[in-house]
């Protein structure tokens, strides 16, 4: 094989979904023995590109060459046979089978039609030994930790494919030690001349493990660079598409005295979040920043009574309130759009109308049904106000795009006229246009005097609309940024800061009168 020839070369890949160009002439080149990080914000086209490479989607244009030959994988199995294996964030193996069965399913050694279990176990053990894993392969997979399962999944993918390995956010649910274990495996695979595509949201990991970085944004290729030649600031700039240095949006509000709407004292939950003090003024947007699993969502769920707090108390307009359940929270004028709208938010088979009136109906009680005419009126109002498409309120919500589903959930809570609305990742997984609309909506709501608590992984977004930002780490509120302190740099520093931060910094300042 020609040494200069790339292992995998994709040129001018196009992928068009109804109404959206998901990939626009994207080039991608992977060499053997390199770790190639694929970066981009949500909706940049990373997963679409991966799906085109693995055959989960069919590209609308462009060529994919593997070892110089054009390929068009029909589906993921076909891609696997061609040499492209994928390991997803959620381990896609079967917990109810043994490790060996997972590794060898469909190709178990047979003799007279019978699976030779001992031989299968031995082969599996040999494969896993190459990765430094010495475990009992006759055990059920579910008895092992996610990190071990992840490595088993990688070993399986490499064993089946052997040329290209795609790792889609493999570290998302691993702790630091496990990440190092996984990186050890990746380095071994590099030596075996396997080309690895690594997708991660953790930039430090990208810098640690990758040789090359490709950045996508809005379905376009921004740049492919070698890792040693780029600084993290430049990288973030490429991903976000604006200059961090130009961040001049200083908030003028420091002088603004807001009337406190809700106040939480010593509020917390033993396992989920350390007790915290939080006061939110009328018409204020408080942003919550922190890494995944830091305690952001846990804070929101405790506030809303999903997991009732076990310490502290809350007041609403200076009166003590009960927040022991979501129902109680709704009765007090709270609203909550959860993070995972697919499982916690929408009811997929109900119509848009039914989804919108759900919370309002719950507030009124089931014995007091909302008249149909009123329902229609409410739906019409919000479909227009939020520009929900398609405008047919009787369509099952599952047929809508992610951004429109998100808007329907927003409409559900807006219909209850909440005074305090909690949004957990309101812009996750929705396209860029809808993204901007939701941000605008947040700003409008707060101008109308609603108080909002917004959790988001997209720092620039938080910076754009928050009056105050709370940084959460390790289940603790560790810092608070106000006014001109609110910059993505400061947030990142706060998240990344060592624990030597002066405790005095976490004094509540400014806006609370």
């Amino acid at each position, binding site marked *: 094989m020609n040494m200069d020839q790339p292992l995998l070369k994709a040129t001018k890949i196009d992928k068009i979904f109804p109404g959206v160009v998901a990939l626009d002439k994207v080039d991608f080149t992977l060499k053997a023995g390199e770790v190639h990080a694929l970066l981009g914000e949500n909706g940049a086209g990373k997963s679409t590109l991966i799906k085109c490479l693995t055959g989960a989607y069919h590209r609308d244009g462009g060529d994919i060459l593997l070892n110089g030959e054009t390929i068009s994988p029909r589906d*993921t*199995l076909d891609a*696997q046979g061609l040499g492209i294996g994928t390991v997803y964030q959620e381990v*896609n*193996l*079967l*917990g*109810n*089978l043994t490790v060996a*069965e*997972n590794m060898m*399913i*469909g190709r*178990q050694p*047979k003799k007279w*039609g*019978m*699976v030779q*279990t001992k031989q299968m176990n031995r082969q599996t053990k040999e494969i896993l030994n190459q990765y430094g894993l010495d475990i*009992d392969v006759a*055990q*059920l997979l*579910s*008895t092992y*930790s996610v990190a071990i399962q992840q490595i088993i999944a990688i070993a399986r993918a490499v064993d089946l494919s052997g040329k290209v390995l795609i790792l889609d956010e493999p570290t998302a649910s691993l702790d630091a030690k496990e990440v190092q274990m996984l990186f050890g495996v990746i380095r071994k695979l590099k030596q075996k001349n396997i080309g690895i595509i690594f997708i991660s949201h953790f930039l430090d990991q990208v810098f640690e493990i990758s040789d090359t970085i490709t950045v996508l944004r809005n379905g376009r290729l921004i740049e492919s660079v070698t890792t040693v030649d780029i600084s993290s600031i430049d990288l973030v700039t490429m991903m976000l598409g604006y200059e961090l240095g130009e961040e001049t949006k200083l908030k003028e509000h420091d002088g603004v005295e807001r009337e406190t709407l809700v106040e939480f004292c010593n509020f917390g939950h033993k396992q989920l979040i350390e007790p915290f003090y939080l006061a939110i003024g009328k018409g204020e947007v408080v942003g919550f920043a922190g890494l995944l699993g830091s305690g952001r969502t846990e804070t929101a769920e405790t506030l809303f009574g999903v997991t009732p707090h076990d310490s502290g108390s809350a007041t609403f307009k200076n009166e003590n309130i009960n927040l022991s359940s979501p129902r109680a929270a709704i009765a007090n004028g709270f609203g909550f759009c959860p993070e995972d709208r697919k499982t916690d938010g929408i009811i997929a088979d109900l119509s848009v109308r039914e989804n919108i009136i759900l919370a309002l109906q719950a507030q009124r009680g089931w014995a007091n049904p909302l008249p149909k005419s009123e329902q229609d009126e409410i739906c019409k109002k919000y479909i227009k106000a939020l520009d929900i498409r398609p405008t047919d309120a009787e369509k099952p919500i599952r047929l809508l795009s992610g951004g429109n589903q998100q808007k329907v959930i927003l409409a559900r809570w807006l219909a209850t006229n909440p005074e305090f609305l909690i949004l957990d990742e309101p812009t996750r997984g929705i396209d860029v246009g809808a993204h901007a609309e939701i941000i605008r909506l947040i700003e409008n709501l707060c101008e109308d005097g609603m108080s909002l608590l917004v959790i988001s992984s997209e720092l620039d977004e938080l910076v754009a609309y928050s009056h105050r930002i709370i940084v959460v780490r390790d289940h603790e509120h560790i810092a608070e940024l106000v006014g001109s302190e609110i910059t993505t740099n400061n947030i990142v520093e706060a998240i990344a800061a060592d624990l030597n931060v002066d405790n005095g910094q976490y004094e509540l300042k400014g806006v609370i009168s």
Partner: protein
Amino acid sequence: MMKSRYLPLIATCLIFVLAYALCYWQFPNMLSTRVVGNLLTDNAFLGIAAVGMTFVILSGGIDLSIGSVIAFTGVFIAVVLKETSLHPLVVFGLVLVITAIFGGIMGAIIHYLEMPPFVVTLAGMFLARGIAFVISTDSVPVKHEFYTFLQDSFYRLPGGGRITVIGAAMLVVFFVGIIIAHRTRFGTNVFALGGGIPTSKLMGVPVAKTTIGIYAISGFLAGLAGITFSLYTSAGYSLAAVGVELDAIAAVVIGGALLTGGSGFIAGTLIGVLIMGLIQTYIIFDGTLSSWWTKIVIGILLFAFILMQKGLLLAASAQKK
């Protein structure tokens, strides 16, 4: 820790031994080869059907058509033997092909139309029962020298017990079932489906072939159970074997399989069937109890097993943290 997988099976075996010990303590006669032989003969049709049900439940499905297919098989055999001069073996072969295809079609509908097994096999249940009625509404007796020959063939155990043809057939079916479920690729695929169909698909499990195969096996074994039932009763009656599918499900669950699929043992189902038969035998020995007590005890056992499964799941997830 690894033994948690086998815990339900061990629990089932323990319950069986304890129950048998209790019976023996009250009625020493129950520990005889006669009782054991009868236990096998009386529960042969249920046991055979329950093997098919185990495959279905391991894959995360359910088959409600079993009882109706048994009734259909019985009526079909009786009427064909009465109306034609075909040899019973030919009729057996014919009916097994029909029931296997019937099951396979249900499997195909479940897979290709993405319908819940509950609904599809419910339709199958009405269909098979209806066809049985169309063939004959009366109980049709079977009189054939081959039947008499089969019924009179047995292996005499020391102590006077008899292993009849149908009792032996059940044991053979269980043996073959164990091999297929735990020692073949098909068997692993069945477990894989029970673990999750989308994941199985991603891992390259032939989902369509496996699903159709599972329901074809269940249909085939329901047909075989029907033949067994026909030999056992020497008649075919369209109202026979009502609710046998529920007994089979109970036997599978008592045998330690997870109703949600993916975990269980064919051998456990055998013990489950025997436990149910044992309760029945005890009631006959006692003579004063109503036979409905069988249902009550099975109900209690089922509850106990469901609670145990839930407990094991909780324990397993707690251990992981």
